């Protein structure tokens, strides 16, 4: 079965995986004074900018879920994790070329390691989301729903989806020079093709169907459902689950196929 042996290889090396993730976090936080603040600051400032633009300048009555600022914060934080996964996994093999060349480890490890490290950073930002939620609850602008328990599900899906796409991006970037640029452009477009700023139910029906084909759209739906009232779009959630599994399988096939060529190039 595809992927099973790869999964076993990763499990056998989970100690190494842990070491690598710890190293990533240590390097990331050792070199900077503000450390964690940077991870939070970027999406928080962007949320502020969008909030000002859409509610104060355009004065859109219905920009997304209400309260809109919480809608932005939840969306931007999760999107930031996903977007960083994409740009970092595409460089995962190249940037660690020396290590890839000198250590005999399952090469998938380099992809998983990036997603995990970024995931830890993301989880560390969750208290910020919690703080805003508590603030809006106290001021009576929102209340939590039972669907809040779906948050872990959405995080697992983001993780698997990122690993799946990452296993395609990492080897292709080694073999095709300009892949990194393509990733950057697709990410920028993908940001608007994902209901980060808006919510999917505001879009006209045709666009809603298109949005359902974007796995991040369903994942965001799951992630946000506990914070806001309103029906969950089950179609896009189902499509997100299916697409995640498909991409994971495609990713592991592509990775295995390209591995020998990548090791010659690196």
């Amino acid at each position, binding site marked *: 079965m595809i992927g099973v042996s790869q999964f076993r290889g990763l499990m056998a*090396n989970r*100690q*190494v995986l842990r*070491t*690598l993730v*710890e*190293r990533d976090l*240590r*390097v990331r936080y*050792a*070199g900077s004074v503000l450390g964690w603040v940077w991870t939070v600051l970027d999406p928080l400032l962007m949320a502020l900018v969008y909030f000002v633009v859409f509610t104060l300048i355009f004065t859109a009555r219905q920009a997304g879920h209400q309260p809109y600022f919480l809608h932005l914060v939840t969306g931007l934080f999760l999107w930031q994790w996903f977007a960083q996964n994409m740009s970092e996994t595409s460089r995962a093999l190249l940037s660690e070329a*020396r*290590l*890839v*060349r*000198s*250590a*005999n*480890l399952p090469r998938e490890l380099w992809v998983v390691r990036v997603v995990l490290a970024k995931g830890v950073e993301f989880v560390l930002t969750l208290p910020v989301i919690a703080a805003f939620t508590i603030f809006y609850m106290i001021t009576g602008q929102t209340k939590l729903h039972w669907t809040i328990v779906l948050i872990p599900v959405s995080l697992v899906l983001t993780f698997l989806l990122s690993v799946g796409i990452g296993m395609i991006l990492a080897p292709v970037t080694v*073999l*095709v*020079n*300009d*892949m990194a640029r*393509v990733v950057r452009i697709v990410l920028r477009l993908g940001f608007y093709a994902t209901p980060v700023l808006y919510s999917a139910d505001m879009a006209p029906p045709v666009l809603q169907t298109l949005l359902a084909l974007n796995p991040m759209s369903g994942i965001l739906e799951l992630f946000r459902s506990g914070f806001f009232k309103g029906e969950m779009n089950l179609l896009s959630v189902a499509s997100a689950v299916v697409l995640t599994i498909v991409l994971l399988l495609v990713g592991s096939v592509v990775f295995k196929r390209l*591995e*020998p*060529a990548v*090791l*010659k*190039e690196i």
Partner: protein
Amino acid sequence: MAKPVIEVRNLGIEFYRSRRRRMSLREMVLKRQNSAPSDTFWALRNISFDVAKGEAVGLVGGNGSGKSTLLRMIAGVMLPDEGHAKVRGRVAPLIELTGGFLGELTARENVYLAAGLHGLTKEQIDARFDEIFDFAGPQVQAGMDMPFRHFSSGMQVRIAFALITTLDQPVVLVDEVLAVGDRAFREKCYERMENMLSGGKTLFLVSHSEHDLRRFAERGLYLSSGELKGDGPIDEVIAQYNADADADAAS
């Protein structure tokens, strides 16, 4: 008879002569196909041999004969296009020594991380930590908490060599690293290699130094333009290599 520690069968690896593999998207879209010629060559082909436990094998051959490629495939960091190279037991690769080290972290952190990459648990590293730094020498010991990039390159290699040889893996691959380090340290390295050999480790050595080869290896493998030309006692193989090299020089 015990199974061989290293088993290489019909090993072959093919490389592109041009940079074809490094494709550019613009090229693919605009020209529909790759402009670069697609001829390939076999860097190694039809290589078969066994290495038994405790054997010390020296790999001989000119530049570009495929020695390092062979070593990489045995280490598992390159995958063959034909055949297989199987190793029973873990490998301590003295190939790209400082590959797993990061300049920003201290020497101490680096040792933990690199040893972790080679599969050691934290307790195992704790137990060997002093041994590693004893071997690397007093100057290194004094700077244990200094960022790794502040060490001189010789010192960096010392730490890496000390670490990898302390891993205690049954198979040791050495690619031309004995030339590093000053005289005193080189002697220490030789001593350690001899200890490893007498401790029953299997050694696979690539070197251009006849002195090193004769000192450590009993058996030699001679590679020439991707083929295995000789396999026998190290003295004979060196003689064969020298005769070939002289013949080439004369013609």
